[in-house]
């Protein structure tokens, strides 16, 4: 199935993969998130920052076509693949890592055809790519948190998603797993995919190409070095930001969220 997929554009080239212009999204008439304007190009990693309830997941649901814009415009050049947060119900699902990767082949074939040899080969190739082919037959729920995220990345690879959304993929990961996942995201961007990562870790987002700060509205969008100012962070995180005295000056710290329910 990989030979049927269109070639991926070189980094930074061509039209935007995602364009949002004054976008508003929400679940009923009242929008949860307003004034979102940004563009994601091939080869870019955008960190999506914001507090719980700030609209990160809502934005992702709009990008996945689960929510229609209430106002403004949202254009995707191609379909997005997603690496969702791990929910408990998913952990005791009777599926192997390979089964999950195979779910990425559904869009690529007519509805009456079952996954065949080509699809299985593509799924194995994607699992190899994320370093998990040896665990292909392992139950999804038995994998570690980092391994589960990588299986879901493999699913997006099988889909050949040129836009990849990751909803707080680093939450609960140990350092080694987090580094491994971060490297994988760098590789995805390097091969010309557009990557959107929702995260709580401001320091981590500094290494990426752009940051999108959300707090029920778009606070800022731009390269991290210029965008992540004190004012922007304060407006993004509101009261959960504190200054800590440190030798030679003060340092900002963002309080960890009190609870981990999803912001939808």
């Amino acid at each position, binding site marked *: 199935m990989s030979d049927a997929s269109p070639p991926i554009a070189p980094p930074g080239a061509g039209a935007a993969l995602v364009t949002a212009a004054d976008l508003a999204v929400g679940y009923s008439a009242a929008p949860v998130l307003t004034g979102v304007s940004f563009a994601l190009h091939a080869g870019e990693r955008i960190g999506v920052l914001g507090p719980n309830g700030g609209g990160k997941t809502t934005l992702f649901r709009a990008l996945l076509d689960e929510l229609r814009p209430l106002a403004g415009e949202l254009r995707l050049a191609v379909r997005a693949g*997603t690496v969702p947060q791990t929910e408990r119900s998913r952990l005791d699902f009777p599926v192997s890592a390979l*089964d999950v990767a195979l779910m*990425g082949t*559904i869009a690529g074939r007519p509805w009456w055809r079952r996954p065949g040899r080509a699809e299985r080969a593509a799924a194995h190739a994607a699992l190899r790519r994320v370093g998990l082919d040896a665990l292909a037959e392992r139950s999804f729920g038995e994998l570690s948190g980092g391994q589960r995220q990588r299986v879901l990345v493999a699913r997006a690879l099988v889909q050949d998603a040129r836009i990849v959304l990751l909803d707080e993929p680093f939450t609960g990961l140990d350092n080694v797993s987090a580094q491994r996942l971060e490297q994988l995201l760098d590789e995805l961007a390097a091969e010309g995919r557009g990557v959107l990562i929702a995260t709580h870790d401001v320091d981590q987002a500094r290494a990426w190409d752009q940051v999108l700060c959300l707090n029920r509205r778009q606070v800022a969008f731009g390269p991290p070095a210029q965008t992540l100012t004190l004012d922007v962070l304060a407006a993004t995180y509101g009261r959960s930001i504190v200054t800590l005295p440190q030798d030679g000056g003060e340092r900002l710290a963002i309080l960890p969220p009190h609870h981990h329910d999803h912001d939808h």
Partner: protein
Amino acid sequence: MFEAFDYPFMQRALVELLVLSIAAGTLGTWIVLRGLAFYSHGVAAAAFPGLVLADGLGFSAALGAFGVALLFALTVGRLAAREEGGHDALTALVLVAALAIGVVLASDVFESGANVETLLFGSLLAIGADDIRLAALVSALALLATFVLGQRWLAAGFDPGAARSLGIRSPVADLVLLALIALAAVATLSAVGALLATALLVVPAATTRLLTRRLLPWHLATVALAAAEGTAGLWLSFETNAPPGATIAVIAGGGFALVALGRAAAAGLTHLRARKVVAA
């Protein structure tokens, strides 16, 4: 000991149960996986007024039941399959309304009171060739649909938020599942009745769920268990002169309780051993 199965009516009942367990086993697995247990109880109960109407007006019972069940599937079922919550109360409401309408129709409009118990609890010992044919049709459809649409049902249940992104854009696959469950519920009516349909459709799958970790073994184990519990229930009902539908339901419930207890005991034992290892 097994001379019970020398009687033709017992043989027909046995064939009906064995054929039915193929549908109940494959669909039961999806019912449990997708959280549609209450829906399947509701859709079986909703078929009851359809049966009464068919009986009173003299058209095919299966047609009447399936008509009403399909209506239920397209309204309440669609909400249930979306897994957004809030459909439980609606399911309960429609379920009670269906039972009440069925009883009123049976007792006051068509005065077919004697039939009500048969419709609610099945008449396994009066199975006809038509019942077996319907069961065979449903089983064949359940196998075919599982073969073709299984991956979509699995993917949509695993990650509902990503379904559209994965290419499952149309709700047709889920509607087929809901309609098939409705059809299977109708097919089980003649065997165990509207109120006990879940004894075949849900309980065996919920039991084997505790013992399997992949879809295919789960499907196979559920078909085998449904067949075994159906056969055991039928035989026991003959020996004890108890109603067969209820006997099957009791055996299925007992089977689930035993497996659940066994698993809890095994988990407790493992924990105890781990404590000893730590203490040593």
